[in-house]
């Protein structure tokens, strides 16, 4: 077992490299997250985004909407770009729209949303766009593969017409990986979104290598398993090896585990706290763990 830990330089090559993780640890610690390219276009995207599942579903509560806007402000200030939501997330979409308007519509925004159960996909997409108040989405994904045979052609059509920049599909918690894999092989996807973290590593077997091979950007959802991983490690001291990659909290260590996989393009932790969003973005800067350290992180979390 090596006695020293190496971390990884976040490069465009790394994002598309199949299988093995790249060695090298050259990045100096920085508050801003590194960027990786979207394989289908080469556009650079910061590797930490912002999810909105549960945390942004605050209804019409003005106080909580302002809190979400503050989280968005801190997100953009810290170098973030991708915000991801869904029509399934209650009031999250109008709350995002409120925040964007309050912040003067930040140019850095990479708007990612989904099309869900509606029989009338275009109407749902238009409603979603109006909530956000954006001229068009950067990325639209078929939520949990619902009606994907009908929805994917619609999204590809929108992309061809210049009404959308990227097309993707999503799943979570290991569901329907066989179908995801088939669609990844058969369809010209720009993005795929699924769950991957220190204890849920199923994606390492097929989906992550396939994404690298096919040049599909990967969005990782539920990096903390909806807070369950944070609660799991809450009473355990941060291991000494966290310092080797500059992680100052369990949340950062868990995120760095995900971000160190070269096929991952962006992870989208959700939070309702400004300090947490800053902490998450900072995890995308500086050193990332090598294969050996990743194995130790995973083993440590699984043992708790």
């Amino acid at each position: 077992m090596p006695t020293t830990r190496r971390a990884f330089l976040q490069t465009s090559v790394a994002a598309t490299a199949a299988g093995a993780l790249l060695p090298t640890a050259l990045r100096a610690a920085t508050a801003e997250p590194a960027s990786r390219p979207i394989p289908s276009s080469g556009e650079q995207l910061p590797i930490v985004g912002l999810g909105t599942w549960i945390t942004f579903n605050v209804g019409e509560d003005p106080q909580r909407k302002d809190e979400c806007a503050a989280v968005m402000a801190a997100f953009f200030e810290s170098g973030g770009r991708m915000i991801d939501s869904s029509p399934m997330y209650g009031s999250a979409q109008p709350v995002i729209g409120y925040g964007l308007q309050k912040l003067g519509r930040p140019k850095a925004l990479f708007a990612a949303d989904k099309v869900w159960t509606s029989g009338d996909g275009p109407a749902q997409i238009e409603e979603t766009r109006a909530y956000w108040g954006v001229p068009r989405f950067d990325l639209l994904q078929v939520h949990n593969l619902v009606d994907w045979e009908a929805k994917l052609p619609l999204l590809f059509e929108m992309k061809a017409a210049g009404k959308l920049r990227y097309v993707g599909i999503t799943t979570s918690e290991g569901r329907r990986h066989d179908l995801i894999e088939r669609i990844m092989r058969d369809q010209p996807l720009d993005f795929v979104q699924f769950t991957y973290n220190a204890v849920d590593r199923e994606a390492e077997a097929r989906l992550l290598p396939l994404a690298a091979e096919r040049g599909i950007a990967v969005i990782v959802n539920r990096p903390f398993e909806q807070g369950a991983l944070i609660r799991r490690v809450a009473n355990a001291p941060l291991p000494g090896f966290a310092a080797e990659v500059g992680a100052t909290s369990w949340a950062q260590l868990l995120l760095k585990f995900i971000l160190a996989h070269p096929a991952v393009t962006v992870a989208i932790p959700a939070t309702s706290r400004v300090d947490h969003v800053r902490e998450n973005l900072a995890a995308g800067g500086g050193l990332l763990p090598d294969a050996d350290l990743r194995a130790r992180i995973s083993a440590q979390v699984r043992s708790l």
Partner: protein
Amino acid sequence: MSEWWSYSAEDFLLFSPRTYWRMFELQNEAYWPLPVLTLALGGIVTFLAARGGANFLRSAAAILALVWSFVAYTFLWTRYAGINWAIAYVAPAFVLEALLLLLIAVRAGFTVQPRGVVPWTGYLLLAFATVGVPLLAPLHGRDRSTSEIFGIAPDPTVIATLGFLILLRGRFLWLLYPIPILWCLLSGMTLHTMGDAQAWMPFTAVAVVAAAAIAAAVRRPSRTPA
């Protein structure tokens, strides 16, 4: 293949406990001092039920219909449906329950159960819903401002209605049970999924109603003349 069996209740919980309880705080603030009046209405329903005449019972049913409609619009439709899209389908069920209460009270009428354990269980549920439920917030470590008030929030309104129904006899009375019981199960599951200890409350209400229904059924044949 949708792999529906791979979904758990947690997958359908769209909001945080913080957001959930904040709804009650906002609801109480928005309609203050109406909660004081609706609490008094809860007491009036109990009084009218205790009086027991047909017109008194109709009046009690009318008050309950009024608060069901109020909760349906101001809480479920305007507030809760904003964070949980499924509630948009529940709000009309509350309006339907209000209409059924009015219709059955006016057309079929009610009588009060003969004295015994069953009606006392009804009074107990009514008293708990109006006086006990608002006290649960501080007892469960929440701020008093998040208290659920009869006529303002769904759980105490529904539980009080179940208490009222237990007190009664009537031809179409059974039609009034499904919606409150389904609501209690939904509310209990929501609270349980949130990890909130207060899930015991709506589940217990359903258990009490079931026990009262069994007790009433057992008692009835013994009172039938041979």
